[in-house]
């Protein structure tokens, strides 16, 4: 029976409605099935162009059918197909390359500027942590062993000689396996940064504790070196990669605090809405943090061992810091575009 014959024979109006439109539905279903299987290459240009139109036609068919038809099977089918094509029409859709370009072209720096307040909070927490570590160990050097996990270093302990400490800062004889070391440092630091962010979910308190603990360790270490007059050299040793790495950890902690703060104080929005707004912003920052940590790992693994004097280390570290600051403060400022 041809469509016309079927149409004229159909007793029910709602069946006629279906017969008039089902060819479009079946075409859409075919396109959707191919796209879901990842066979976009097999689609003709017309099909790709037709997708949004067919989708909107389908939605209106669904609305009409809901009001006029009692064919439950048909409505079920239209519901299912609508949902499937909705996901394709409003899919993630940005290719990785395009997303990456938008990310570097300003998305990242804008996200960082958007969480400015949290960055200041994280920064003050980190400074406080370092100061606490320093003061604690200065008051009673036993604190050092409480703050620094055992096995972290056998040489860098309170009471170590200046030569021994200097040996940990300068020394090129064991430059073997720098690449492996860098890769290991990166994956280790990245996990810590991810942790600092993800813990923000528990109202930011664990993030803050993690920042304080890590920085107290640094403060304790600084005291050990300061006792032997190696403060400047230690900071130089640290800064070559530290400006990048600590900046990354600062951003990760700030991202965590941002999420936690939005959940605790959502303002006029609902808690869930506030959390998801903050989460998406913070996720952009975090993607950047991972990239910064790759840089830090490379600097730590290679540059620190290869540049063996404090002046050079300060130069590289300061240069990196300047680079990040210029990018975050200056890049991707919204220009008033017509219609934007």
């Amino acid at each position: 029976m041809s469509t016309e014959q079927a149409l004229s024979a159909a007793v029910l109006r709602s069946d006629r409605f279906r017969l008039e439109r089902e060819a479009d539905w079946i075409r859409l279903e075919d396109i959707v099935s191919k796209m879901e299987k990842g066979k976009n290459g097999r689609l003709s240009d017309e099909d790709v162009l037709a997708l949004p139109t067919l989708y909107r036609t389908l939605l209106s068919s669904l609305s009409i059918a809901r009001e006029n038809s009692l064919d439950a099977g048909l409505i079920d089918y239209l519901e299912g197909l609508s949902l499937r094509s909705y996901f394709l029409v409003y899919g993630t859709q940005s290719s990785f390359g395009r997303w990456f370009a938008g990310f570097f072209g300003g998305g990242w720096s804008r996200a960082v500027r958007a969480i400015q307040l949290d960055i200041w909070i994280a920064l003050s927490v980190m400074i406080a942590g370092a100061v606490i570590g320093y003061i604690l160990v200065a008051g009673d050097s036993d604190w050092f062993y409480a703050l620094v996990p055992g096995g972290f270093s056998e040489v860098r302990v309170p009471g170590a000689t200046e030569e021994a400490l200097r040996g940990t800062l300068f020394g090129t004889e064991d430059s073997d396996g720098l690449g492996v070391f860098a890769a290991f440092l990166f994956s280790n630091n990245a996990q810590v940064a991810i942790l600092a962010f993800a813990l923000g979910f528990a109202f930011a308190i664990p993030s803050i504790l993690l920042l304080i603990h890590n920085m107290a360790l640094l403060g304790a270490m600084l005291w050990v070196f300061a006792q032997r007059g190696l403060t400047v050299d230690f900071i130089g040793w640290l800064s070559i990669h530290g400006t990048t790495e600590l900046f990354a950890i600062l951003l990760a902690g700030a991202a965590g605090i941002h999420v936690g703060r939005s959940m605790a104080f959502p303002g006029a929005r609902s808690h869930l809405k506030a959390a998801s707004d903050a989460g998406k912003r913070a996720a952009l920052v975090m993607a950047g943090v991972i990239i910064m940590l790759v840089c830090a790992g490379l600097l730590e693994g290679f540059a620190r061992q290869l540049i063996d004097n404090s002046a050079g280390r300060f130069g590289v570290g300061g240069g990196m810091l300047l680079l990040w600051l210029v990018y975050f403060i200056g890049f991707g400022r919204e220009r008033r575009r017509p219609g934007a």
Partner: protein
Amino acid sequence: MSSSRAVNPWIRRSADPTLDRIMVTPEGVPLNVTIASAGARAGALLLDLVFIQIISTVIALLCLTLAFFFVAGGADFLDMDGPLGFVGIFYFIANFLLLNGYFIYFELGDRSATWGKRLVGIRVASRDGSRLTAEAIIARNIVRSVELFLPLTFLGSAGAGGMSVDLTTWAGFLWVLMFLLFPLFNKDRLRGGDVIAGTWVIQNVKKNLGDIVAPSAARISADGSPVAARYHFSDAELSVYGEYELQTLENVLRSDQEEALEKVATSICQKIGWEPGSGDERAFLEAYYTALRARLERSMKFGKRRKDKFAPHE
């Protein structure tokens, strides 16, 4: 936004109605979605962990094979700047990418689902019906490290170290439970990552377009008159049923099983006071279905709907 009000209140859609939700598309059309159950989520996660384990084993074997060939080729085993160092770097980076990238990579695809989720038949979607963004995917998966990998590492180290069961262990265990069981404590089955990313996980639907329910009603029988014309139902005979019964009848006609057809035909005949005939059940049921649907759809146009046979007439 979501609400628990169903679009068509009288259509039963899923096994567990507490998981049914509405998602409004940007065009303003509400669509029915069903939240993935906690069991489906757990199943998908276990499958994904198995896949990750398999891939990680393949990476380790690859690295070992490479290292073996380099050593056999005369490379110094302790020279970390040589080819062995390269293998080491590759191993660390590959493992990091696998643990953190597996979920993100697959959920960014057209089907927004990892292999495990695809097998179970669920996918990630944006809660408010807007486009699912890359940021949301990254956010929901970064949190996974706290929910899953941190507890796993913790349990692993507690087990390997033979740590005595003290307060720290119990605190850690509570932490694990808090995040793992989080989806069970909210009605949308959101885990921590879903809360932060504004996403939820829903069931895939795949329904085929069935045939017209009662095609024979219009068919011309041997004597030249439409089959449906053989049966005439009065208003009173059609007013005994509502939409619920119509739907049941539709299911019976679609499944097309001999005994069910006979049983339903008999009970309808009893209800409307007809003498049940035999041998022609399908034609009778299709005729009755068509007449009943025509009547109900007509009153639907005037905004009057009748839920089932117990509903009063307006």
